[in-house]
């Protein structure tokens, strides 16, 4: 058996997967996309989406988080002024779904896919 010698310079491993928890806008979009569920069911779905986002490769999670911060800026301002409500988010999400800008559309698509999968796998009776 050989002996262990000096190690050649290598790339560091960096941040662990799971470093970015769900952000405010992401919670709002999930709530908007699952309007018919009760609080318990929505909580289960939110937990699933949160776990999934934390599991993403870091560079993809950072991209999604950046979009969440960017797209969430104006609703947050509206919230600070007391003018934010869920219905306005609903209209906003519908606009994003049909956006001609692929990153915007993909942002909603990602969250929508996660919500749909969880909704129909975790709470099949509720979504009938």
């Amino acid at each position, binding site marked *: 058996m050989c002996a262990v010698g000096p190690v050649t310079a290598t*790339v560091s491993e960096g941040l662990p997967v799971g470093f970015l928890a769900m952000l405010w806008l992401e919670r709002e979009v999930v709530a908007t996309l699952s309007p018919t569920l009760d609080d318990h069911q929505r909580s289960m779905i939110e937990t699933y989406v949160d*776990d*999934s986002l934390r599991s993403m490769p870091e560079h*993809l999670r950072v991209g999604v988080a950046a979009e969440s911060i960017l797209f969430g800026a104006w609703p947050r301002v509206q919230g600070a002024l007391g003018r934010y409500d869920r219905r306005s988010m609903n209209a906003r999400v519908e606009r994003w779904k049909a956006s001609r800008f692929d990153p915007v559309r993909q942002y909603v*698509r990602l969250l929508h896919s996660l919500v749909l999968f969880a909704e129909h*796998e975790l709470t*099949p009776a509720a979504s009938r």
Partner: protein
Amino acid sequence: MTTPEATLDADVLVIGSGAGGAATAATLAAAGRDVTVVEEGPWIDPDALEPFSLEEMAAKYRHRGLAAALGNPAIAFAEGRCVGGSTEINSGLYHRLPAALAESWRHEYGIDDFSPETLDSYAQRIENELAVSRLPGAPPPSSALLERGATKLGWQAIEYPRVFRYDAAGRGVKQTMTRTLLPRAIEAGATVIPNCRVRRLLRRDGRVIGIRCHRTENGVAENLMIRAEHVFVCAGAIQTPALLQRSGIRGGVGSGLKVHPMIKIAARFPHPVDHGGVPMQVITEFGPNLSIGGSASRRGQVAMALADSSADYGDALDDWERVSVYYAAIRSEGRGRVMAVPGLRAPVVTYRLTEGDMSRLARGLVHLGEVLLASGATELYPSVADGPVVHNQHELAAWWDAVTRNRTNLMTVHLTSSVRMGEERSRTGADSFGRVWGFDNLRVSDASVVPDAPGVNPQGAIMAIAARNSDQFLAEG
């Protein structure tokens, strides 16, 4: 809590326990070598979780299935991360490497001892070991529908064999690596260490002398060094090049990634369709550059596929038991790259589809639509944003223009060719038997060395090549 670094010794160290790693470990252990297999993911009883369920994705898929190759369009992809690798999560469909492709690659990349006859002999060995077989009875409705549509159109369709063993009642059990080659390797003396992530290879003077890894067992984390005489990296087409790059090995590593991009349709039928498995009928009329088959279609997957069309799908979703998901997959002429980036644990993956690829995907979508309508489907929802829902053959023409880079949602489960093998050093990362250029004791034996996209489910080719490379290693003494 992390304990101080422990040290283990091995003669042959195999990194990864999927199709390539398990075939390597079983071959070498049976020949009497001292084999240690390290696997990043956990060992999960193959009967513990329902196939394609949310629980399975959380437990066995890397990133819970949420990975994507960056590009326009991006391509979502899935990899296994558990003992047995992707063999634990795939459909079990099996196909030998097409002879024409093997012959072509042999010349293009200068691969020694890569004749179709040689590969077939290894494939036969694997098929015997895994009980590769066809369904003993009639196919399930989701599969029979494809056959019916193909027959009506006069297209060639075949039932793919699967790595399934059937009992007298016709019940099939998928012969994953945790059921087959890994237990055989252990029986022959091999050790399998799950929950063990390899951080980097340790190198000295043109040799790899071991690995540094991080193992977690029962909540206790442990840094581990494993010294080895010989190392086989079998971590798949994404993780293998990433590990090599993290270890400072970059020549011919990570470039040339190939995938089979898949475009999908959620098809609604006038009658219920089964949702438990994946259809085994594959339409080969346009192969090997375009194949058509069925996807996992649990309720959650049906919902996601319907939503991909951005049409109003509420009524179809309420009727989900009559909806099933099908795909068209192409052999892409584009290529991608895997890059280990300092500061990131997951590698960055990119993929560039050519205009020809986009055209083939549109053609694939239209052909898939044709066969589904011929099989009796009444509504087709394509995985194309704003792609119109189609009800008859005349409406299919609208899809030719709908498949654009900004509107098409793609995914893949077949990733290959990121450390190609062959004697053409400028185009490969390893020699004809997977030995990494510049190292006499470091080999790659997984999907990475397959020189190009095979156009069929790749696990058969991966296992045959891994067995072949292992025999060569043994022959070299």
